């Protein structure tokens, strides 16, 4: 893993961009990442990659005209890259027609430094070497081979730093790491799936995961066809997470609601009382940055309270329309997608998977879903 720029380096780059801006308001985002992924198929590594890069994004607005520019790469000569970026973005801005109602860039936030410093980071993950990734893959592949089945998947580690600064005084920088081990295992009749995610790669228990996914696969051998029909279904956390992520983005995006493309209505029952959902960037296990694409601190938002619609994800654009404050769920602006859910947490119940299964007379236990798509925004 490379020894890249420091927090001070990123803030200095951001500062140099702002210094070079000729006029108007500006927002600059500097991102540095080092990421590696070891991929496997048929119980062997077949692709093994790493990438390292720096990007600088500038949004410039003056006299109602907006220009946006990004440079990825160019780390070999930062001053030249900065000069090129500012010139190009200003050139775009001058040629753009006037837009009405532009929001000012975000101003400085008191107390953000402590929040940013506490973002989830692990030196072990940032320094993870290819041999370590390969060794974890070997655990999964070995377990599958001994069971007479085949493992496919990936072991990934990434370390990202991001600085965001504006001409209104915002200056934030945080860093985060993520380690993921995931595997699909296939036997003759069926397969299984498992994954583990952690800020600290040391917390990825490859042997435990391997045991789980191989056990699922072996349990799924000798499967018989099932007639189409209506069944009770128990979803494992993997399947529930996939469905929940789709559901959240479809329903709780304030832009979709504003444009009547969502079934959301505050107080409307959308699920059973057993289901409560929040998007909580402050949750202990949540990785990622404490600020959103505009530099606003991410706030917890209760989306479903015992099945009843209770809140929406906002960025500053939708917040202005709704006459509320942003709750820090913006992508980079401008965009057409609206606010996003980045830290979904389903409130736990009090039953184990086996207990849920024991309560089903005849039904299905689904480990994972495939190719989820919404066929209709309102009726899905």
């Amino acid at each position, binding site marked *: 893993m490379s020894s890249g720029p420091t927090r001070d380096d990123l803030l200095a780059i951001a500062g140099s961009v702002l210094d070079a801006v000729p006029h108007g308001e500006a927002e600059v985002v500097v991102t540095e990442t080092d990421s590696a992924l070891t991929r496997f198929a048929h*119980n062997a590594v077949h692709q093994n990659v790493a990438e390292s890069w720096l990007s600088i994004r500038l949004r410039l607005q003056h006299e109602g005209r907006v220009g946006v520019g990004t440079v990825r790469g160019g780390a070999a000569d930062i001053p030249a890259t900065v000069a090129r970026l500012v010139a190009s973005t200003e050139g775009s801005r001058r040629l753009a027609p006037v837009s009405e109602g532009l929001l000012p860039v975000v101003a400085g936030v008191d107390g953000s430094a402590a929040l940013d410093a506490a973002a989830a980071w692990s030196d072990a993950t940032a320094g993870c070497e290819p041999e370590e990734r390969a060794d974890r893959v070997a655990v999964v592949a070995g377990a599958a081979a001994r069971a007479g089945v085949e493992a496919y998947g990936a072991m990934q580690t990434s370390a990202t730093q991001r600085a965001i600064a504006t001409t209104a005084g915002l200056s934030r920088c945080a860093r985060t790491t993520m380690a993921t081990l995931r595997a699909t295992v296939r036997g003759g009749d069926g397969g299984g799936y498992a994954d583990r995610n952690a800020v600290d790669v040391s917390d990825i228990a490859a042997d435990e995961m391997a045991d789980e996914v191989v056990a699922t696969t072996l349990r799924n051998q000798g499967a018989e066809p099932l007639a189409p029909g209506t069944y009770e279904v128990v979803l494992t956390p993997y399947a529930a997470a996939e469905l929940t992520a789709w559901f959240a983005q479809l329903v709780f995006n304030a832009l979709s609601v504003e444009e*009547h493309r969502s079934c959301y209505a505050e107080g409307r029952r959308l699920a059973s009382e057993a289901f409560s959902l929040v998007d909580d960037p402050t949750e202990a296990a949540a990785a990622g940055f404490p600020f959103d694409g505009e530099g606003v601190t991410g706030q917890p938002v209760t989306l479903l309270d015992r099945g009843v619609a209770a809140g929406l994800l906002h960025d500053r654009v939708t917040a202005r329309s709704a006459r509320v404050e942003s709750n820090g769920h913006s992508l980079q602006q*401008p965009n057409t997608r609206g606010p996003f859910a980045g830290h979904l947490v389903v409130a736990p119940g009090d039953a184990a998977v086996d207990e849920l299964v024991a309560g089903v007379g005849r039904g299905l236990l689904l480990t994972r879903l495939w190719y989820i798509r919404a066929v209709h925004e309102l009726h899905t």
Partner: protein
Amino acid sequence: MRDLAERALDAATGAGAAYADVRVAERATEVVEVRNGQLLGVDRDEDEGIGIRVLVDGAWGFAAVGALDGRSVEAAALRAVRIARASARVGGTPVHLAPVPVVVGSYTTPVAVDPFGVSPAAKADLLMRVDAAMARVPAVTVRNSSTEAVREHRLFASSEGSRIEQTIIETGSGFDATATSDDEVQTRSFPNSFGRHQLCAGWEAVEEMDLEGNAERIASEAVQLLTADRCPTGVTTLILDASQVALQVHESCGHPTELDRVLGSEAAYAGTSFLTPDLVGNFMYGSGEVTIVADATCPRGLGTFGWDDEGVPAQRTLLVDRGVFSGYLSSRESASSLGLSFSSGAMRASSWARIPLVRMTNINLEPGTSSLEEMIATTEAGIYLETNRSWSIDDRRLNFQFGCQLGWEIRDGQRVRMVRNGLYSGTTPRFWGSCDAAAGPDEWRLFGVVNCGKGEPGQIAHVGHGAPPARFRNVMVTSS
């Protein structure tokens, strides 16, 4: 670029790589977007870097870096070699590569009007006019339009001696209009689904689209769909417009003929394929009306280039020949795995920061001899569907369900009523086996798909599809 490529190759081979290749790229992108009468901004991106792929002890390693200086490039090469050695710790069958001629050459996308020579103001002015035309339809609540121009200059160099420079230019545009009521949302888009159509061509491609001329009609259709009858349910004759046929080809032919999927490389993510090697030459994929080719030489195709990202020349490969499954999209490694003597030249990386994977080039359904109007006129009862709305297909590319934006019920050879929320489902070979007519060359259109996902870490590829309208019998159709 050349010096850096040579330094990377020297560092990699010097550290023990038996094979190495390098891609150095500089990409410029300009996007102009308008939403509900507001310009969202003129967005210019520049992206440059180098990706180094090596074979050491029969295993792959890859490292990419966004710093184009000698020290960083050499460090990346050494990192790639170390990664390859780590691969060998959990190694399988050693990698062998099908041979490829050593080439020194260059290629540039032919364009009439440089899309970067058209000012952002002119692009924004076009989009504002398109937006204004949609805005003339009162019940339309969301209007999106955009243009995109891409120019990538890339150098490929291999330890075998190939040196290839290419400049690939893409231009795209499109719009969509959404109308809503209390219990309905309907979106119509033009010229393709999800708001953009893109080609390897210049600005002339946008001028040919006649966006402004179609905007009010498309917006009106979105409103009409709010109160249209639901698409009826039943097994019936289905006619698809060219854009939906293109997507059908993409999902049910392009993907299952990617040989790396067949061999299991994507089993953990994008899936596998039902088109196993034992079926080549003897499996009826479709009817005799169905001939599908992979053609990286197709003029203006989004999957058109001079050489792929392994230095294999662009070529045309028969995937389905008059209904018979005939071939694959392949790489040097996958071709060798199957005992083929050469790659079909389908290795493409989404950027310098990613390894090349087997991807579609231009996957084209050859034109037939009929026409859309003739197919409708000779259909006693059926449904005509236009423009994709949703898509879902299983991980082997066998069972699928697609939704479309606009439908028409056909009775006695006539379109009798507009229908909404049309969905159709099927099984790939049965569906293509039911194709009994396809429109001719006059109605054959080339479409660009800009959101094809594959690989870990994920890559988004730009691929092309040429298709005419076509008719299929005994298809399950319903509504959402």
